[in-house]
């Protein structure tokens, strides 16, 4: 019988992390931003049926980058968790914090268990509050950690560059059109510094809108509504961009 090679635990974990990160980096990035009336999810997605964003519960939305079958599995698990919890207790007792915790435990256990391959996914769980102060955004990397984010967050391939771009430009109280415009700008940036155009048909946009009268606040923005918002944001910020250039 041959003796297996010794691999130090540090090395094993680093390899697993590297494996997961590479898998996630293959997918397109997506961003989640707070705006005045809620939280907006924006990503590039050529498919209209296979969503990156979806509704988990009344005020809770879900976004994921990485391997589709793995995050789809987690998404359905989250819907089941939320629905069962709401059925057992009350609709108000389903919170993003609780859900993020369960996701973190799940990802963490899978990541550190030698029997399973690590999930190549990075999740965002967001909950819209009654006021912007009540909004919560959690980022859940592949290894089971939780990051409590404010304002804006990016996940996926080019996330670091996009995040720093967003951090510099995101402001509280932006309108939906402004936030959408900023999100699209950030996603259009190439890792090598260039820019490319993302046509509206390739954008997936959804919001958690606190002004929606229904109990369920999640809504997809598609078609004409999306075109209108993109135009609106473009017209408003075009003049601002010129001003900024003048200052420079």
């Amino acid at each position, binding site marked *: 019988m041959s003796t297996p090679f010794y691999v130090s635990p540090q090395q094993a974990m680093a390899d697993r992390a590297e494996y997961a990160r590479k898998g996630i980096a293959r997918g397109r990035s997506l961003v989640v931003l707070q705006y005045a009336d809620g939280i907006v999810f924006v990503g590039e997605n050529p498919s209209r049926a296979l969503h990156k964003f979806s509704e988990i519960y009344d005020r809770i939305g879900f976004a994921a980058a990485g391997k589709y079958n793995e995050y789809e*599995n987690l998404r359905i698990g989250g819907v089941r968790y939320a629905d069962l919890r*709401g059925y057992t207790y009350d609709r108000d007792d389903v919170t993003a914090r609780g859900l993020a915790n369960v996701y973190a435990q799940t990802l963490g256990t899978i990541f550190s268990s030698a029997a399973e391959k690590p999930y190549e996914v990075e999740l965002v769980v967001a909950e819209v509050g009654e006021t912007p102060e009540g909004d919560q955004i959690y980022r859940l990397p592949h290894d089971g950690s939780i990051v409590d984010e404010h304002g804006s967050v990016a996940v996926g391939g080019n996330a670091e560059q996009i995040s720093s771009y967003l951090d510099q430009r995101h402001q509280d109280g932006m309108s939906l059109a402004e936030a959408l415009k900023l999100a699209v700008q950030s996603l259009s940036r190439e890792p090598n510094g260039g820019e490319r155009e993302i046509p509206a048909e390739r954008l997936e946009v959804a919001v958690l809108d606190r002004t929606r009268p229904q109990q369920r606040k999640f809504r997809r923005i598609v078609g004409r509504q999306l075109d209108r918002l993109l135009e609106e944001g473009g017209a408003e910020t075009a003049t601002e961009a010129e001003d900024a250039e003048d200052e420079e």
Partner: protein
Amino acid sequence: MEANTRSTGRLPAAFLTPGSSSFMDFLSQHQPEMLPGKRQLPPVQGVIEAPHGTTIVAVTFPGGVVLAGDRRATMGNMIAQRDIEKVFPADEYSAVGIAGTAGLAVEMVKLFQLELEHFEKVEGTTLSLEGKANRLSTMIRSNLAMAMQGLAVVPLFAGFDVDRDKGRIFSYDVTGGRSEEHGYASTGSGSIFARGAMKKLYRDDLTEEQATTLVIQALYDAADDDSATGGPDVARRIYPIVTVITEDGFRRLTDDESSDIARAILERRLEQPDGPRAALL
């Protein structure tokens, strides 16, 4: 949900197992004891005393459907509750009204609403109206053992069929048997009287306003002859719950709207206690 996530805090395997998009199927595998139909009732002598909801009526009109219910719950000869609500939205385009054992019926509605919402979230699309009606059928059937002991639930389901562009009504019996009703339908103890009234008043070209008036007339007639059905309670400002479902979705009439209709009817009935008369020939 400590019990569900067990000791590790991670999602149990059942949550991550690919399977059906039905919440009830998930529940029956993961926590069957939470399903209403899975409960065993000890053998008892006689009838179990529990509040019963009474009359529900529905009427279609071009462009939608109206579903309404009175506000009384009775327990034997007693009025158990004066302002019970028995008509609920099932989802954006459908509503369910319940007659029968109130406790079980409310639980059934809660599970039914969740079933539709769960499917919508998992699949990203809504069930067809027929699909929803069938789901409700299954739930009633699972309650059959309880129904045999006097705890029956018999709902009325109404919705706007977005594919066919019209309002539709489905009625049920205790065994889960489902039948589509054309024009109007009623369920509950006062249903016979309500149905008689609707038969004489119904036309197939009603406006939404006329349809809402018609259902309150029918409920008035039911309350007139059935002691378990409550009429409009002017002193306490308790009026029937009236809901309208059109292509714009579900809407419940505000208290002011339903009180206006109920008061107008009451005013006319002061002169004609039996309500409007239909032509003889």
